[in-house]
Each structure stands twice: as structure tokens, then as C-alpha cells.
């Protein structure tokens, strides 16, 4: 299983990678910007993507639109500090499969990931 982690913070990217370490994941890519994420996804079509929203340049919701345009079945878990319901609902309407708020709770993250790959 290929995982793409998108966040402008390298500390967050590595924390997510450590939290999701398992035998199921065979390949992990990281992107610090939305632009890099779209490029990487277009090339590799990762099975699961974790995606931040507030990033320099292309924001996460625009990135989500572009990923969904490439593959409407993409499994995208938004992980964002933005704790308002409207943003979460908007992300789901635009095609995200789940929404988690920062700070990241490792057990909630693993649970969300498991649900995502069960689908």
C-alpha cells in the first residue's frame, strides 16, 4: 500500500509516518506543498493520502479538488488544525473520506486510517 503524507511541517509529516507504520504500508511519500502533492499523486496514485489544509501556495482544499479530479475514488484523510464544522463538511463534500483535527491523537489517526483502507 502506498501512502502520501502532505503537510508543510516536517515534524507533522514524520509523526504521521511513525503513527501509521505497519506492514500494510509498503511505500511512503511526503510532500510539503499542494503542488508537490498533486505531482506525486499524478505519478503514483497512492492508495491513501493524508492532507493538511493550511499550507503555503496551494491550500489543501484546492489540492483535494485536483487529486479528486485525477481520481474520484482517491482516499483522502484531511488532518488540519481548522476545527470548525463548516471546513470539515466542505472537505467531505469535495471528496475527502475523513477529517481529523490537530493536534493529532495517534490512536484516532490509526483508527481513521484503518476505516479508510477497509472501504
Amino acid at each position, binding site marked *: 500500500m502506498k501512502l502520501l503524507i502532505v503537510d508543510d511541517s516536517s*515534524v*507533522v509529516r514524520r509523526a504521521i509516518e511513525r503513527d501509521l507504520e505497519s506492514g500494510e504500508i509498503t511505500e511512503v511519500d511526503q510532500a510539503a506543498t499542494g503542488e508537490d502533492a498533486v505531482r506525486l499523486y499524478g505519478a503514483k496514485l497512492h492508495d491513501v493520502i493524508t492532507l493538511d489544509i493550511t499550507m503555503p501556495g496551494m491550500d489543501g482544499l484546492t489540492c483535494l479538488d485536483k487529486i479528486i479530479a485525477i481520481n474520484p475514488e482517491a482516499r483522502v484523510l484531511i488532518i*488540519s*488544525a481548522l476545527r*470548525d464544522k463548516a*471546513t470539515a463538511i466542505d472537505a467531505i463534500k469535495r471528496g475527502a473520506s475523513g477529517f481529523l483535527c*490537530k493536534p493529532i491523537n495517534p490512536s484516532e489517526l490509526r483508527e481513521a486510517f484503518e476505516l479508510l483502507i477497509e472501504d
Partner: protein
Amino acid sequence: MNDQDIQVFITGVRRYFESLRKDLRVVIEPPFIKDEQKPFLEYTGIIGVSGKAHGAVCFTANRVMLENILRFLNEAPINGELICDLVGEIANTLSGNAREEFGRDFLISVPVVSTGDHIRFQFPKECRNYVIPIIWQTEKAYLLICLT
């Protein structure tokens, strides 16, 4: 921004530090207002705010506290780049979490990180500056709320 609005930031601070380790207590001292010089420590993550409010939310801390947090996150080796990344991410998390109370029109920027007193941000003059002192593992940090 009024005294009641500050509570959402206090809740966010508690949530952040408890997410690192629940058994380590974070002490949040009573917030105070400081209209002149701001208490910047060694590293400061600044989030510009626009939309529903204008100004900035800043998390400022010394290197020791930030190194301790990175250790809890299993980061090694620790360097200045990681410390700057972390202080920006904490500022992002605490300001983004405030949208739970203020809603989607509370627009936040990506973090700007400054060291020492060299603060690269123009704070609005017309706002009250709330300072929330935070003590975690004997180290002190501040969350500064400078919003109209």
C-alpha cells in the same frame, strides 16, 4: 476580542499539551493584558489573522521547551530547523483550533517564524494584547493574542 473569547485559546493550549502526554500537567496562569512590549522568547511562531478578526496569534517559547516537545514526538537529532518548524506548527494548531469558536471566517495564514526580538510582523496598534502564560515541565511559554 474580549476576556471571554480568550477561553477558546486556553482550551486549545490545554488540548495541545495533553496530546503530548496526558499525565504531564500543563499549568496555564491567568492571562493578562500587555499593550506595550510583548514578551517574546527565543522562538516565536506567528499566525496572521484576517476576516472576522485582524491581527496575529503568536506562540513564543525557549529552545529547551521546544526540544522537550520534539523529544516527546520522538524526533532525533534535534536541530534549529526542526525547532522553527515546531514553533510554527504549534502556533498554527492553536490558532486553527480557535475556529471551533470563531468559525470559518476566522482566517489564518501559514506560520512566520522569528527568533529573539527580531519579529517580522506588523502588529495592529488598535488591539488589546492578551498574554497567556504556559508552564510545562518547568519551562515557560506564552501565547499572545493580538486581535481586533
